[in-house]
């Protein structure tokens, strides 16, 4: 079953209680520890990546893509159901001009802040509190996009 959905969109049919949401906190904690301990949250590691002076980030992202691809293929092939017994929904993402323009804009921001969205949360937790400002600015950026959306080429 494939349908058009947005990134991160909840595809579970069953309604979740606050208690059920606790499991996402746990996955987040696990994920946040990996992010910080592998230093992918670091501005320096992002600079090394864009200066081609270290394999680290390419290794992390490349391995993650391979593992995610194999896992996704296994779920599709064996039609593995979710814990709730539902069929997994895989998002179709039709191409639009925003993939290019927005993608370039995110790339600019990535090189400036040295952080994609996930690392921002991890950095705040690690005590780099100035990233609260970066996060607030990112939320404002998303807000600006939401208001201007219809005027932008897609």
């Amino acid at each position: 079953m494939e349908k058009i959905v947005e990134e991160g969109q909840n595809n579970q049919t069953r309604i979740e209680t606050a208690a059920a949401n606790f499991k996402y906190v746990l996955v987040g904690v696990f994920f946040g520890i990996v992010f910080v301990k592998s230093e992918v949250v670091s501005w320096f590691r992002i600079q090394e990546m864009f200066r081609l002076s270290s394999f680290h980030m390419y290794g992390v992202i490349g391995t993650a893509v391979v593992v995610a691809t194999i896992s996704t293929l296994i779920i599709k092939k064996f039609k593995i159901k979710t814990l709730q017994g539902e069929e997994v929904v895989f998002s179709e993402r039709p191409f639009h001009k925003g993939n290019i323009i927005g993608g370039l804009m995110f790339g600019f921001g990535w090189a400036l802040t040295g952080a994609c969205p996930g690392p921002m949360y991890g950095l705040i937790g690690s005590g780099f509190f100035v990233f609260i400002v970066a996060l607030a600015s990112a939320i404002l950026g998303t807000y600006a996009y939401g208001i201007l959306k219809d005027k932008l080429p897609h």
Partner: protein
Amino acid sequence: MDFLRQPWHWSIAGVLIGLTVPILYLIGNKPFGISSSFKHICAACLPSKAPFFDYDWKKESWNLFFVFGIFLGGVVAATLLANPEPMKIAISTHDQLANLGVTQFSQLEPTDIFSFSGLLTVKGFILIVAGGFLVGFGTRYAGGCTSGHSITGISNFQISSVVATICFMAGGFFVTWLILPLIFKL
């Protein structure tokens, strides 16, 4: 515990980050993606008549629990699992950044720029505030970030995600090599 405190190897991090994709699919039919959290925070907290923010954000609140977890994970990593050693940075990047004017190299972030005193400088303001704004605007316009497009999208063979990832990298190279030197002269 010692090997947990040291910086983790890319292969371990890559496998664990990659596994987040099937974990989220299987525990609740959720496609892995983080930048959507910005949108849900807008929909939940900021006033708007824009149709883009007119949806049931509570149904998507799992994403906010998830990013709250990432924040907590950061707390754990920086306390229980804190690395006692200074940051090791590739020599060529270290020297190029030192030439630009970066002075602090011992932590995850150059604290001369990414700190509240750094925020009050022109370059700090551009890197943190303008950079953050571009991350928020760009990810939503592109329809995802590194997690949503580069990992989840590509693992599901989406052409748009491959295009977006190429553009993320192109934008990053452009700013690193051509724009950062100008910003550091300000």
